[in-house]
């Protein structure tokens, strides 16, 4: 063997680290994480007795890190298809700033830390639910459903809907109807939200081989299902008032937002061609974000007001 065989060229040399802390932070999907924090906070505040503020903060932090860890594991597994879509190709792995193995190690480490921290800070029911949420998002949704069925985001939506249940369990050590109703709101909200985007990004999803509803069953069926889910969602959005754990103000806001959401869905159903159809779908996509954010904001604000007047 000649000495030449020992030459380490650039390609085979150990890869030098280039990822900055910001790249690791991007792995956590901060925007998704902020929605998780918000909905989990609503779950915590639904507790009949006020939790200790610091323990509530620590629980929320653990839930946020758990959600971020799911995002990192999702980016680890989906790096191949993230390269194919404009929406995701600038993520740290497809952009070449971070290796897949680093994302996997980072995600696994944070998952374990988040679950054990929540168990020690709050209780093991909440920790178990957080572990289940991470498992459901990474294994059931990302690894299994996402690439195999157009019902991917319907069933997978359960992972995104669980944070209020985890938050409530962290604050009370139990699961009750109020947290399950919030689960229902997010669960029914997920399909119209993502299918509106899928109508616009149909070609990209097709290129990446993801069987979204418009690619598998066509746009007409998707528009009908968006309308059906929106009509089903509106009354569930009002349920917190009807069941007595939100004020009439919340009830009115939920009613108005539900009507507006259905109007957007009707628009998507009716406008089927060209730029108008694309605009209607994007309007529904963005309005659905406003819908969920406002519902939970009203819920959070009125619970905080009630808590502050109770403490005063």
């Amino acid at each position: 063997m000649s000495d030449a065989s020992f030459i380490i060229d650039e390609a085979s040399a150990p890869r030098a680290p280039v990822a900055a802390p910001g790249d690791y932070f991007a792995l956590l999907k901060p925007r998704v994480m902020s929605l998780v924090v918000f909905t989990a906070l609503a779950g915590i505040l639904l507790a009949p007795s006020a939790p200790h503020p610091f323990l509530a903060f620590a629980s929320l932090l653990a839930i946020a890190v758990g959600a971020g860890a799911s995002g990192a594991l999702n980016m680890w597994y989906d790096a191949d298809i993230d390269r194919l879509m404009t929406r995701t190709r600038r993520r740290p792995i497809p952009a070449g700033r971070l290796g897949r193995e680093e994302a996997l190690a980072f995600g696994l480490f944070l998952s374990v830390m988040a679950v054990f921290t929540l168990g020690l800070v709050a209780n093991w029911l909440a920790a178990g639910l957080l572990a289940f949420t991470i498992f459901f998002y990474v294994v059931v949704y990302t690894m299994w459903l996402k690439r195999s069925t157009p019902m991917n985001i319907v069933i997978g939506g359960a992972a995104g809907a669980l944070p209020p249940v985890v938050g409530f369990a962290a604050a009370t050590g139990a699961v009750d109807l109020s947290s399950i109703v919030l689960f229902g709101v997010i669960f029914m909200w997920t399909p119209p939200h993502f299918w509106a985007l899928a109508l616009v990004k149909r070609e990209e999803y097709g290129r990446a081989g993801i069987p979204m509803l418009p690619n598998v069953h066509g746009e007409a069926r998707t528009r009908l299902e968006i309308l059906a889910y929106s009509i089903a969602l509106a009354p569930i959005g009002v349920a917190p008032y009807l069941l007595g754990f939100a004020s009439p103000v919340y009830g009115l806001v939920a009613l108005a937002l539900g009507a507006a959401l259905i109007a957007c869905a009707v628009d998507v159903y009716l406008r089927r061609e060209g730029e108008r159809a694309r605009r209607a779908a994007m309007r529904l996509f963005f309005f659905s974000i406003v819908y969920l954010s406002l519902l939970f904001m009203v819920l959070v604000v009125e619970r905080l007001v009630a808590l502050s007047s109770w403490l005063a």
Partner: protein
Amino acid sequence: MGRSEDTSERREGVVLTPEQEKSRRARNIAIGVAVALFVALFYFVTIVKLGGNVVPRAG
């Protein structure tokens, strides 16, 4: 003698660019801050959980 010497010499040839060194330093600082915050979190959680059970011993 020749082989091991050659290998080590060439491995030393992998030099980080200033940008990579900057990223590594930033990562080290971020890990340090995260560990410090984690320790502080558990310190305060312990204090809160012990709460009124910590009382000065008389005598």
